[in-house]
C-alpha cells in the first residue's frame, strides 16, 4: 500500500513585477506579468508503507523544497502529493523550539503545534524524556542546549507517536554517534511497524544502511531512482561530470549497474586481476598476492594524470582506496596516443565475499577538479577462503594466538 504518492509535482516561486499584483491576484485579477523560478519540476514517485526512501542531491537540487511540499509547509504549483495517515517532519534542528522554554515545555509546544492535545502529550512526556536522554537538561531552558541535545529532543517528540510518514532533513547528523545509532534503530523499529521514512542526507553510510531506495534529485528533477549503491555511484559520477562529460550506464553480469562518466581525455582500456599464478581470475583466495593490471590510454594531452582505484564490498563501503597522487607517481604532460599500464600488487587481505573495483582518472587527488574518466564496477571479483582458519569480518588480519594456562 502506498502511503505517499507524488505525481507530477512542480514548484515555481512566482515573482510579480510588483507585489500589488500578487494582492490583486488574490481577488481574481489576471497576473500575466508574473514569472517564476522553477525549483522542482515534474517529480513523481511513490512510497510504500514501511519503506525507507533516501533523497540525495547537490545543494540547491530541490531536496528540502520537496520535503517541505510533502510535509505541507510549502504548496506545490503543479501536481499532487497525496499522503495517507499522519506525517511527522523534522525539517530543522529544534524546529519551533522557543529558546526560553524548557525542553519539557517545548515538547508540549511543538507536539501541540502538531495537533496533539495536552492529555496525549502528558501521557508520553516521560517516554520522550527517557528517549532523549539529556538528563536534567530536559527541565532547563532550551537556550542552554547544544545542537545535538536539541536534535535529540526534536527526534524524540517527532517519533513519540508513530507517524505514518516520517520526514527527516539532515538533522540527525548533528547527533553524536550514540544517538545516531539510537535514532536509526528507532527508525527501523518504526519502519517494521509500518512507518515510511523520507530522509535527506549527505551521509552515504547513513543512507545506505537505512534506505531501501534512493532518489537522486538534480536541478529540481529526478535524475535517478534505484538501490542506494547504484544511485550513489551515479551521483558521484554526476558531481564530477564536467562540460562534455558523458555518463554511460551498463548492466554488468552480476546484475550490478556499471557507471562510466567523465570528460574522456584518458580512459581505462582494460582492467585485469591476476592471482599468484599470474593468470587472470575473478576469484581469489584470502591473503593471496594478487595484481591489478590497469591499462590506460590517453586521448588528448593532459598536464597531469593520476589513476585512483578503490575496492568496495558488496554493500558499497570502500575497503581500501588510494591513487597515484598520494603515492607520488603522477604522470605529467601525457600526450595523446600514449598508453600506460599500472601494475598494482597487493595481498587480498579481505573477508570472504564479493568485491568491486572502481577506477578514476583525474588530475589531482580528487575527481572534483577534473574527471577524465570514472568507472564504477570496473571489475568484480570474489574472495574465497581456501587455506585460512575460519574468520568473520571484512578484512583478513592474520592473528597469532598464543594461549598460556595459568597455574591454578
Amino acid at each position: 500500500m502506498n502511503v505517499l504518492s507524488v505525481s507530477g509535482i512542480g514548484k515555481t516561486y512566482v515573482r510579480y513585477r510588483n507585489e500589488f499584483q500578487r494582492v490583486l491576484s488574490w481577488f481574481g485579477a489576471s497576473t500575466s506579468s508574473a514569472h517564476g523560478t522553477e525549483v522542482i519540476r515534474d517529480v513523481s514517485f511513490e512510497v510504500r508503507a514501511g519503506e525507507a526512501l533516501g533523497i540525495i542531491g547537490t545543494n540547491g537540487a530541490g531536496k528540502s523544497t520537496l520535503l517541505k511540499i510533502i510535509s505541507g509547509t510549502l504548496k506545490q504549483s503543479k501536481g499532487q502529493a497525496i499522503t495517507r495517515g499522519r506525517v511527522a517532519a523534522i525539517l530543522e534542528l529544534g524546529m519551533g523550539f522557543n529558546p526560553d522554554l524548557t525542553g519539557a515545555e517545548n515538547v508540549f509546544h511543538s507536539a501541540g503545534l502538531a495537533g496533539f492535545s495536552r492529555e496525549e502529550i502528558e501521557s508520553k512526556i516521560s517516554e520522550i524524556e527517557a528517549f532523549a536522554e539529556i538528563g536534567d537538561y530536559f527541565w532547563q531552558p532550551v537556550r542552554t542546549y547544544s545542537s545535538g541535545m536539541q536534535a535529540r529532543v526534536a527526534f524524540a517528540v517527532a517519533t513519540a507517536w508513530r507517524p505514518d510518514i516520517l520526514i527527516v532533513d539532515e538533522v540527525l547528523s548533528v547527533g553524536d554517534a550514540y544517538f545516531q545509532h539510537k535514532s536509526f534503530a528507532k527508525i527501523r523499529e518504526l519502519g517494521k511497524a509500518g512507518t515510511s521514512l523520507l530522509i535527506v542526507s549527505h551521509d552515504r553510510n547513513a543512507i545506505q544502511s537505512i534506505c531501501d531506495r534512493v532518489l537522486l534529485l538534480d536541478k529540481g528533477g529526478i535524475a535517478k531512482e534505484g538501490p542506494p549503491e547504484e544511485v550513489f555511484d551515479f551521483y558521484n559520477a554526476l558531481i564530477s561530470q564536467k562540460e562534455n562529460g558523458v555518463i554511460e550506464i551498463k548492466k554488468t553480469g552480476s546484475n550490478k549497474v556499471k557507471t562510466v562518466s567523465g570528460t574522456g581525455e584518458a580512459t581505462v582500456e582494460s582492467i585485469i586481476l591476476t592471482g599468484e599464478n599470474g593468470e587472470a581470475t575473478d576469484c581469489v583466495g584470502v591473503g593471496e598476492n594478487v595484481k591489478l593490471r590497469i591499462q590506460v590510454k590517453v586521448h588528448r594531452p593532459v598536464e597531469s594524470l593520476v589513476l585512483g582505484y578503490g575496492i568496495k564490498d558488496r554493500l558499497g563501503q570502500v575497503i581500501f582506496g588510494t591513487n597515484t597522487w598520494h603515492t607520488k607517481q603522477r604522470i605529467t604532460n601525457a600526450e595523446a596516443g600514449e598508453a600506460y599500464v599500472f601494475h598494482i600488487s597487493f595481498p587480498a587481505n579481505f573477508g570472504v565475499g564479493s568485491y568491486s573495483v572502481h577506477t578514476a582518472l583525474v588530475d589531482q587527488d580528487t575527481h572534483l577538479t577534473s574527471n577524465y574518466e570514472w568507472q564504477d564496477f570496473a571489475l568484480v571479483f570474489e574472495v574465497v577462503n581456501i587455506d585460512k582458519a575460519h574468520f568473520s569480518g571484512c578484512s583478513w588480519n592474520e592473528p597469532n594466538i598464543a594461549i598460556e594456562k595459568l597455574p591454578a
Partner: protein
Amino acid sequence: MPPALSALWQYRHFILSSVLAELRLRFDRSVLGGLWGVLNPLAQVAIFALVLSNVLQAKIGNVDNQYSFALYLCAGLTCWNLFNDIVSRSLNLFIANGNLIKKAAFPKIVLLANLVGACVVDNLLLLTAVLALFLITGFTLTASLVFLPLLLVLTIALATGIGLILGVLNTFIRDIGQVTPICLQVLFWFTPIVYPASIVPEQLQNLMAFNPVYTLVTSYQEILVFQTWPDTGSLLNCLVISAGLLLLGGFIYSRAAEDMADVL
C-alpha cells in the same frame, strides 16, 4: 465551518498554553514580573496627565473629581492600548514567525490567536488596575459598566480584522510595516484620547464619527468616566465595520496562506 475557524477550535488547547507561556516568559527574569504589564500603561497615563492636565483639566466635561483628567486618560488608553497592541503586533506576526511557518505544517491563523490572546490578557490586567484606580479615587462604577464586555469584544474584533489584513499584506509588501506605525500615531492624535472630544470643532466631530476607534474610545469614556450609556447606533456601525474587516481579513488570509511560506 471555514477551515480557519475549525483549525482554531482544534488548536484551542495549544493556543491557551501558548498564551500562558508567553505571558510567563515575558516576565520570567524580571523582579516585578506581571506587575510590569500594568505599570507600563499607568506610567503612560501619569506622563500624559502631568503634561496635559494643566492645559486641559478645565475642559473635561462636567465631571467633578480632581483626578477626572487622569481617569479620562485611563479610560481612553485602556481601549487604545488594546487596539494598538493587536494591530502593531499583528503587523509583523507572520514575518517574525517565518522560520516556524517554513518548517512546521500547522494553520498559521493559530499564531494570530496566540497574539490576540496575549494582548487581551494584558488588557484585562490593565483594566483591572484602571477599575481599581477609579474606586480608589472615589468614583462609583455604575450599571453602564455592563457594556464593557461588549466594547472589549468590539475592540478586539476591529483590531484583529485590521491586524490580520495588515499582517498578511506586510508579509508581501514590507512598506506596510513602515507606514502603519505612522498611521497609528496619526490615528491616536485624531482620536479624543488625551483631549476631550468637545474641543474638536463641530463639523470635524461629525467626520470623526466615521472612525470606529473614535466610537470605541468615546464609549469607554462614556461608560467609565461620564457614566452614561454609549450610543448603540454608533456601536452597531462599529460592529458592521469590524465584521466586514474580519471577513476581508479572513478572505485575504485564505488566499495568501499558501503563498506566505514562499516569500518568508
